[in-house]
Structure formats: structure tokens, C-alpha cells
């Protein structure tokens, strides 16, 4: 049974269509990536999943059943704007939130101390949120969303504003949660996180799902358009090969854009005749490239 199932949900704000006929499924122990430019409808989708707002049409089911109050105990939510009381001590508010989700104060306290230790910020236990740096606030928000051992976690831009070390730390944590069977729906702008964590993704654009599916399959569906070539010496005449649309000189070699995959063998042939080859690769498109290609310039909105 799918943990989470969205069936053609539609949400309209005034005359603006925020989400249009979106369907997706998240299984147990899966991290599902929700991508899209700002204003594409990611947060709206997440709010609908949480039951904060209701879809105008379509159905959302959890373990095959509609939304109910019991779900509140197994939800974890990290909003994009952290969602913490700025003037309240970390321990006070996190224990409060965990208690509201049905955890006992004692268990919550032990769990909180464990997580603070894990994130190397045990000294923040009795500090106010406003005294912490942005990255540390982020960590506290992250802990707040998983403190009560939720089964379904929804994270909006979980890794933004963190340094690389802490991003790794959180990624490890997220993977661990996944391996324990937690289903995670998370949104991000950063493609490399998605490639590393997610099996399935949906790319939203103006409320429409423009790309959807398994990352591997998606990548193979998009044509390979780039050839990396590293050679000992110069290679001439690359741009006159049929199917090559551009050649760029890079240190120790060339980055060649091709319109057609059949041009690749000819490039290799041409190069082999002229010099020794150290590296030759027909690159599979990165998600970033796919994203930019599909969503286009609007990703900078």
C-alpha cells in the first residue's frame, strides 16, 4: 500500500491555478523530490498533503485512507520559513511541539538531547531561537520536524542556508530516516541533492507536472547531448563533423555539444587519428540540464 497518494489534485487561488491535476505516489521508505521554480506550486502541494488547505478537486490518501486527525501524530513538517518562536527557548518550544504530536515530555526531552548531540549543537538546548545563527535555526527546525518519530515527513527547502558540512550531516540523517521506513516528500532547488537522495521526482511548472517519474528512466529518455574528450594534444576539425553543434576548449580537452548521439563515434574517430585519448565520455544529462531545458529561463524568476 502506498504511504501517500495524490490523485489529480487541483487547487485554484482566485483565477490563478496553483496546482493542476497533480498525481504522485510516495512509498514507504522513499524520498520523493518535488522540484520547480519559485511559485511553481510546491508549497501549495505540501500544504494540501498536510491537510492545511484542501484541494478543490482530486483526492489525497494516506495508507489508502483520506485525511484524518490520527495522521497529525505521524506527520512531520518543516516549513520553508522555519516555523519557530523567535523568543522562546529551543527546549521549551521543541518539547511543546513534540507534546502536541502526542509524545511524552520525558521521551521528547531525551530525543531532543540526542538529536542536538548528533547535530553537534548541544549548547543550543536552552538558547532562544533569535540568538542562533541562521544555519543553527535551520537545524533546530529540522529537529522539530522529526523529533516525534513521524512516519510521513514533509520538508520545504530543507537544505537551504546550510554550509556543505551540515548539508552532508542532514543528508545522512534523511537517508537514515528513509532506511527506517519513513516516507519523505521534499522540495528543493538543488538538483544534486535530488540526484543523490530521490528515486522519483516531479518537476512542477506553474502548477503543472512537466516532468515526472523515476530519475534513471527520465535521464535515459532525454538525449545525450554532451561529449567530454580529454586528449594529450590538440584535435582539429571537430566542429566540421556532422551532428556537432558546438565545441568548447577546456583544460586538457574539449566539451562538445552534439545534436545527435550518432555523432559521438565520429568524434572519437577523428580524435584518435590525431592524438592519444585519455578520456572519452558521452555524458548523460544532469537533472540540472533537464530542469533548465524543460522549465527554461523561468527558473530564474
Amino acid at each position, binding site marked *: 500500500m502506498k504511504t501517500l497518494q495524490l490523485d489529480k489534485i487541483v487547487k485554484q487561488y*482566485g483565477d490563478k491555478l496553483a496546482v493542476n491535476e497533480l498525481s504522485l505516489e510516495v512509498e514507504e521508505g522513499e524520498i520523493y523530490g518535488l522540484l520547480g521554480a519559485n511559485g511553481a506550486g510546491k508549497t501549495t502541494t505540501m*500544504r494540501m498533503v*498536510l*491537510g*492545511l*488547505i*484542501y484541494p478543490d478537486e482530486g483526492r489525497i490518501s494516506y495508507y489508502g485512507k483520506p485525511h484524518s*486527525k490520527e495522521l*497529525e501524530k505521524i*506527520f512531520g*513538517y518543516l*516549513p*520553508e*520559513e*522555519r*516555523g*519557530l*518562536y*523567535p*523568543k*522562546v527557548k529551543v527546549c*521549551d*518550544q521543541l518539547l*511543546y*511541539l513534540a*507534546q*502536541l*504530536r502526542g509524545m511524552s515530555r520525558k521521551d521528547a526531552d531525551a530525543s531532543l538531547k540526542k538529536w542536538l548531540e548528533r547535530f553537534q549543537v548541544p549548547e543550543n538546548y536552552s538558547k532562544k531561537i533569535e540568538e542562533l545563527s541562521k544555519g543553527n535555526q535551520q537545524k533546530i527546525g529540522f529537529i*522539530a*520536524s522529526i523529533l516525534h518519530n513521524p512516519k510521513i515527513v514533509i520538508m520545504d527547502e530543507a537544505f537551504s542556508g546550510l554550509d556543505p558540512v551540515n548539508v552532508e550531516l542532514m543528508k545522512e540523517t534523511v537517508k537514515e530516516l528513509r532506511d527506517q521506513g519513513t516516507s519523505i516528500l521534499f522540495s528543493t532547488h538543488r538538483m544534486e541533492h535530488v540526484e543523490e537522495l530521490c528515486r522519483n521526482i516531479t518537476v512542477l511548472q506553474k502548477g503543472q507536472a512537466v516532468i515526472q517519474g523515476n530519475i534513471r528512466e527520465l535521464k535515459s529518455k532525454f538525449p545525450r547531448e554532451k561529449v567530454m574528450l580529454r586528449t594529450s594534444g590538440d584535435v582539429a576539425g571537430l566542429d566540421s563533423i556532422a551532428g556537432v553543434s558546438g565545441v568548447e576548449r577546456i583544460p586538457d580537452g574539449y566539451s562538445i555539444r552534439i545534436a545527435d548521439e550518432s555523432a559521438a563515434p565520429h568524434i572519437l574517430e577523428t580524435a584518435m587519428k590525431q592524438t592519444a585519448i585519455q578520456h572519452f565520455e558521452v555524458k548523460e544529462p544532469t537533472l540540472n540540464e533537464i530542469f533548465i531545458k524543460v522549465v527554461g529561463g523561468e527558473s530564474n524568476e
Partner: protein
Amino acid sequence: MNSLKTVIGFTLRTKLLTKSFIITTAILVVLISIGVNLPYIISLFSKDEPVKKIGVLSGSYTTISESLSQAFNGQENKDLQIIVDPNATEGQLKTQLENGEINGYIKLEAAEGASPEAFPSTVYYANKDLGFTEQSAITSVLSVLKTKWIAKDALSDEQLAQLEQPVRFDTVNLKDSEEGPVSEADDMRKMVSTFVVLALIILFFMTNMMTGNMIAAEVTQEKSSRIMEILITSVSPLAQMFGKIIGMFILGLIQIIVFLLAAFVNLMLPHNAAAFKDINFDISMIDPNVVLLGIVFFILGYFLYATLFAAVGSIVSRTEDLGQAIMPITMLSLAAFYIASFSVSAPDSMLVKISSFFPFFSPTTMLLRIGAGNYAAWEVIVSVLILIVSILACGWLSAKIYRTGVLMYGKRPSWKEIRKAMKAYKI
């Protein structure tokens, strides 16, 4: 129920220990202490004031000046001394004034155009005005002397005494005095009732404004920091709203108790206790009905207003806009306050009667009627019932608005959207 307790606990814990709450309470406690001790403090200062010496330039009216000096110099703790020297000239008195031997002098002389037999005009010459109390003391003595002067010996002492008596005007309320004539204790009781009612009305208004603003600000803050999104997904809006309201109520109660304690401790200080005894106050004079019903109306009124404050707080997205948004509620509570406090002398007016059934005003106006003693039991019951129904209705509506409002950011939602959303969301 459990989550309600959690919310109340959190509200209390986070508010009670904040610096701002402690400082505000401390400042008010200091102000109350000063207020209670003010009469004593003033008396301390006035004790040090030297006796004022006033000379009299008698002219041909030596009898008057003699009587005047007798009237004042015979008194015990006197603040005025009248010095009469029949031979003194105006020049001498002026020198005495300059040397600081006297504060001023009174000149008695025949009024212009009047015969010497008429009572003279009195003019006070000095560098500084005579104080109000001293002036009225002298005037009252002079007016007695004037009566005597005109009557000469035509009236007996008894008649003179009658003339001095002001006219008495007493009221006997036949409805109240069924058990007998009104005694002074009854009068006192009524005064105490009025005092208790006024105190409760002021307390109601202050608590309402303070906690109401805190509730609204808290909700807006939760909304703008998006913590509301987490809260709503973990606890029902109704529990959340009422948890906050009850928590703030307890907070307000704690504050009131601290204030009352401060006032009580100060009143019990030895120097104040004596003054307290003087006015003959007895705790049994407080009508328990007034206090009991007062507390009922206080609590009900508080909840009615608090739900509205929470609802308004949830509509606004930024704390800056809050002041404007709570304006209508502030107006309502101001109206409740002023209608009651301006009608203290006329608790039977139509305005008070009608507004004592209007839920937003009844906590103050019905209380006023109860304090005045002019009410029927059914009126109080109906008023309380109306209030309770209004609280339930407002609570339900506010929780709906709360649930809907907290998710509306940015542009103002249209009425249609609000209606649609309110229909959809469970609370």
C-alpha cells in the same frame, strides 16, 4: 483535553517568565504602592510646613480682629496664627512683612460707599497668595462674625447656631428600606458597593485590553513566523485558541492577585492601618452578591472579548497591521467601559438597561445595576444566558476565522473566499 492542557502550560510558561511581563508587573506594583501610600506621603510633607502668621490692620474694627484671633489662636495644632496689635500701623506691618515676621496682613476697612456700621471689607496683603484651605478657614470665621455683627444682640445663641447650620437634605428610598429606615451603615454599604463595582469595571477593562492585545499579538506572531502551520497540523484550532485564551486568563489573574496583594500589604502597614480604621471600613460591608456576580460577568466578558481578539489576530499577517485591525474591538470595550463609568450616578437610565442585555456591554453595565441594587433576578439570568450563547457563537466563529485566517497571507482575501474556506475547514 490533553492538548488543551499542553497549550495552556506552554502559554503560561513562555509568558510568565518573559522580562517584559515581569517588568510591567513590577512597575505597576510600585505604582500601586505609591498610590496607596500617597496620603501618608503628603501628610509627611505638610507636617513640616511652618505656621503661617498673619497680621491684622484693625482700623476701627477691633472687635472683629479680636474675635478673629481668638477663633484661630485657640485651636490646637494650628497652621494659622493671627497677630493682632491694635496700635500697629500699615507701615509697621509692611516692614514686618519684609522682615519675614509675618506672611501677610489683613486690612479691615469700611467698604466703599458703605456706612462705618456696615461689615468692613477684608483685603489680604502679601507677597504670596494665601493657601486655599487657609483662605476658606478665614472666610468661614468671618462669615460667622458677619452674622453676629449684623444681628448684634437681636438673636439668641441658639438662633445663631441654627443660622450657622447648613441645610440638610436626606433621601429615604422606600423600596430599599422595607426593613426599616436607612441607617448610616446602609449608606456606607451602598458606597462600598459602588466602589467595588467601579473597581471591577476598571479591572475588567484593563485586563481585557492587556491580555486581549497579548492574545492578538501572539496569534499574529505565530502566523507570521509560520509556526501556525505546524501547530494546526498537530492540534485542533479550537483547542489551540482556547488554550491560549485560558492561559492568558490565568496570567492576567496572577497579575491581578499580585496587585491586590501589593495593595493589601501596603494598606496593612501601621501608618495606613490607622487611616483605614478612621473611615470605619469593615469587610462585611461588601455585598457578596456584587462580588460573586461581578466575577461571573468578569470571566464571561473576558472570554467573549478574548475570542474576538484571537480571531482578529489570525486575520492579520504582520504585527504592524494589528493595531488597526483590533480597533473595532478596542472601541467596543471602550464603549462598555464608558457607558458604565459615566452612568454610575444614573444606573437606572434606559441606556444602561438596554445595554445590560447586549453581550459586549453587559459585563460592565449589568454589574453597575447589580451594584446599585436595582435589578430583578430574571434580568441577571437572561443577561448571563445571552452572554454565554454569545461566547459559544463567537468562539465557534472565531475558531473558524482562526483556522481560515492563519493560512491567508498577502493580499486580503475576498468575502467569497473566506466564506468558502470557512465552510470547508473543520475546527
